[in-house]
């Protein structure tokens, strides 16, 4: 077990390392650096001004050198000007002599976001916090809903209940968020239809969540996953329901509700559990659309802003966090699988 955890952690570190190298390389291509200079020093500056700005702000070193600075194995850049000393490790309001020599991810310093003018760790923490709240409510709606629909549909394969619920879940899965979100806003939030039950903008939900301002974003994400998980649960349920031990139970005269809850359910939930855990990384990318659509400034929206503005250190931070989220949920999924299914051993 310990060895398993260790290998997984090593995989995670290695994946994060590879991904950050790729992201670092792509974000440091010349046109992308120019983009940063323009957003920082003014969108109308000349090419010569771009060059001088880049040189003055630590972008002049070779790329591998700068990656080392971000990692924290190479000393951060320091540039002396006539009236002051500026450097990577010298934060606003800090005296140059107090600043550390190394300030990279190994020292716990995630760098500074050029778009948000804040530490990357703060920006990511803010985004993750908001997204976690959104995901929590999505899970609260999605998981019980999906399991219920799936189990009801899978109990009696081919029945009218099965057909109806299957159709509904296929429609939900077949509708991407950017379609359902827009439809929801038009129908339930705008004066075009006139219902106006909910808010079409979740901006106020960042301060205080209410039923009115949070329903639509949660529903938009939840419904897509709900259909998918329900289909998986149904397939798993129908398979279990045809198993021999279920037939035996029926022949013994056990009542149908007891068969479903006591004998079928646990076995039927093994497959959906993996699918649910797989939803976490997928949700991370689903929130990109929904957060932008509903103007909810979480992790997905942060990623959009970082990518759109070539915010190098923020993008690297986002990558590391994403790798972490994906691999940790997979780890939990693998371990959880063992508890649900005694036939599997981790060795």
């Amino acid at each position: 077990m310990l060895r398993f955890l260790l290998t997984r952690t090593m995989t995670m570190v290695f994946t994060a390392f590879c991904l950050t190298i790729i992201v670092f390389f792509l974000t440091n291509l010349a046109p992308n650096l120019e983009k940063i200079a323009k957003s920082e020093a003014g969108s109308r500056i000349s090419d010569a001004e771009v060059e001088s700005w880049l040189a003055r702000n630590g972008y002049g070193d070779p790329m591998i050198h700068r990656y080392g600075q971000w990692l924290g194995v190479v000393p951060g850049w320091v540039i002396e000007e006539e009236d002051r000393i500026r450097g990577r490790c010298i934060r606003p309001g800090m005296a140059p002599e107090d600043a550390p020599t190394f300030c990279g991810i190994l020292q716990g310093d995630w760098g500074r976001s050029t778009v948000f003018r804040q530490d990357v760790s703060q920006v990511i923490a803010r985004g993750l916090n908001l997204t976690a709240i959104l995901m929590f409510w999505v899970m609260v709606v999605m998981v019980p809903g999906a399991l219920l629909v799936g189990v009801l549909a899978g109990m009696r394969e081919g029945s009218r209940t099965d057909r109806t619920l299957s159709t509904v879940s296929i429609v939900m899965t077949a509708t991407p968020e950017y379609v359902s979100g827009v439809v929801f806003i038009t129908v339930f939030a705008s004066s075009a239809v006139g219902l106006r039950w909910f808010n079409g903008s979740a901006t106020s939900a960042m301060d205080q969540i209410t039923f009115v301002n949070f329903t639509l974003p949660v529903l938009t994400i939840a419904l897509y996953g709900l259909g998918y998980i329900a289909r998986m649960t149904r397939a798993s349920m129908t398979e279990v329901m045809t198993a021999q031990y279920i037939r035996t139970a029926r022949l013994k005269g056990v009542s149908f509700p007891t068969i479903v809850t006591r004998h079928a359910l646990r076995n039927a939930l093994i497959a959906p559990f993996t699918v649910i855990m797989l939803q976490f990384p997928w949700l991370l990318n689903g929130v990109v659309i929904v957060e932008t659509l509903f103007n909810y400034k979480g992790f997905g929206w942060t990623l959009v802003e970082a990518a759109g503005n070539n915010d190098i250190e923020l993008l690297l931070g986002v990558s590391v966090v994403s790798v972490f989220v994906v691999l940790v949920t997979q780890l939990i999924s693998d371990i959880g699988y063992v508890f649900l299914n005694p036939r599997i051993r981790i060795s």
Partner: protein
Amino acid sequence: MTYHDRTGTAIHPGARLYAREVQEGKLSRREFLVRSTALGVSASAAYGLIGLNAPVAAQETPVSGGTLRMAMETRGQKDPRTWDWSELANFGRGWLEYLVEYNADGSLRGMLLESWEANDDATQYTLKVRPGVTWNNGDAFTSADVAHNITRWCDSTVEGNSMAARMGTLVDPDTGVARDGAIEIVDDMTVVLTLTEPDITIIVGMADYPAAVVHQSYDDTDPTLNPIGTGPYLPEQNDVGIRQVLVRNEDHTWWGTEVYGGPYLDRIVYIDYGTDPAAVLAGAESGEIDATYQTTGDFVDIFNGLGWVQSEAVTASTVCIRFNQDSEPYTDVRVRNAIQLAVDNNVVLELGYNDLGVVAENHHVCPIHPEYAELPPLEVDPAAAEAALDEAGHGDTEFELISVDDAWQSSSCDAVAAQMRDAGMTVRRTVLPGSTFWNDWTKYPFSATEWNMRPLGVQVLNLAYRSGVAWNETAFANAEFDALLSQANSIADADERRVIMADIQRIMQDEGVVIQPYWRSLYRHTTANVHGAEKHPTFEHHHYKWWMDA
């Protein structure tokens, strides 16, 4: 008859000349107000010269208190003189003020300057500092602060400092900084500016949004970090892309309370909804905002339908669908002219901006500008356009027209592209999200640029089309144009200037610099309880005028 303004000093003779021109119908009232107040005549005295009473704006008694929430893009702050977005200034206006203020009726009034006076040929300006102004750290505001700021503006060696172009007549072209002796501190309350040549725009330039006045200790970094200013508010929250909050500074006695009244609001909250106006609408319908920053296109009707109050500002703001003359195939003037010939500006106005404006003539001088010269109407001839393009050898060239995903800019470009296709050209339309577009926008060969209005016709020409200036993204470089423009800049009389303007405007058309299809009216919508926050023609937010019913 001798006129005296409120302070008892004699009125500038130029202003009386202008007043006569108004009586003779040669000068519009708006232009008269801009120019006579620029010469140091107070707005009420100026109204008096043309036999009118100064308008009284407020009918109701403002109420103190309240929080106003407005949709606005909240961008990362930087050195005010390098501000390239009005939004940056509008947040900064909470604590950073201006020497003079441009008002919606076209007049200027003193803020940190109490008055100013030009000599008879507009080559020397005497600036009088307003007494009793203090910084929010307790320091007194004096002529040294004024001189310090003007010197900062003149420093053209700073990357992206657009104020240097506005202060051109004070800058030494060799060193790129303020000329020795150009800015002279006479006493604690007086600064004298000596220009190299007559300049009628310098005071108006001090009202422009990058001209925020900073403290002498300011170190060119993010101004929110140490918000020393003279204004009545302080930044409380500055989350880029999310929200910016201004709160009334209770520990600071603002000079303007006695002079102009206000401020009334306790808090002003700017909420960022990105560039999509539908998101702002969703925010409005959700009750998250009390006012829009700007309402465009179809959304004007939609907001009216919601029962929000509309305010309109008639402006010389526009969109320029411009060619970069350094990029193929637009290096060839025949190509540029052919594309212009294929496009009917009336159609662009109708399809791109719902007819919410006036048709323009591809030379970026507006009929509301005093020096506007009327030229023969533009010709539209798609067949001739295609023939001219074939002759230039670009009959089969694919033209790529790039625009930001902003609704009205994008549909205006669509209207241009559609008309080009009707004339037989091959056009590719590319629409980019704001975050991507603005990072590269000056490089696109064929693209659209939004221009805010300037009070005088020569001002935008100076900023945008003079050879090699910071904001010239057309790469237009024409010695004759530059020479004529310099000449126009030194002529205070609108009629005389108009003669030269006719040539300047004709050069703009003949050289095919831009397709400038229409002049926009600007709109803002607020809920019914918001007052004093009417749309300003140059997007300025005068927070101290805003108030709300309970």
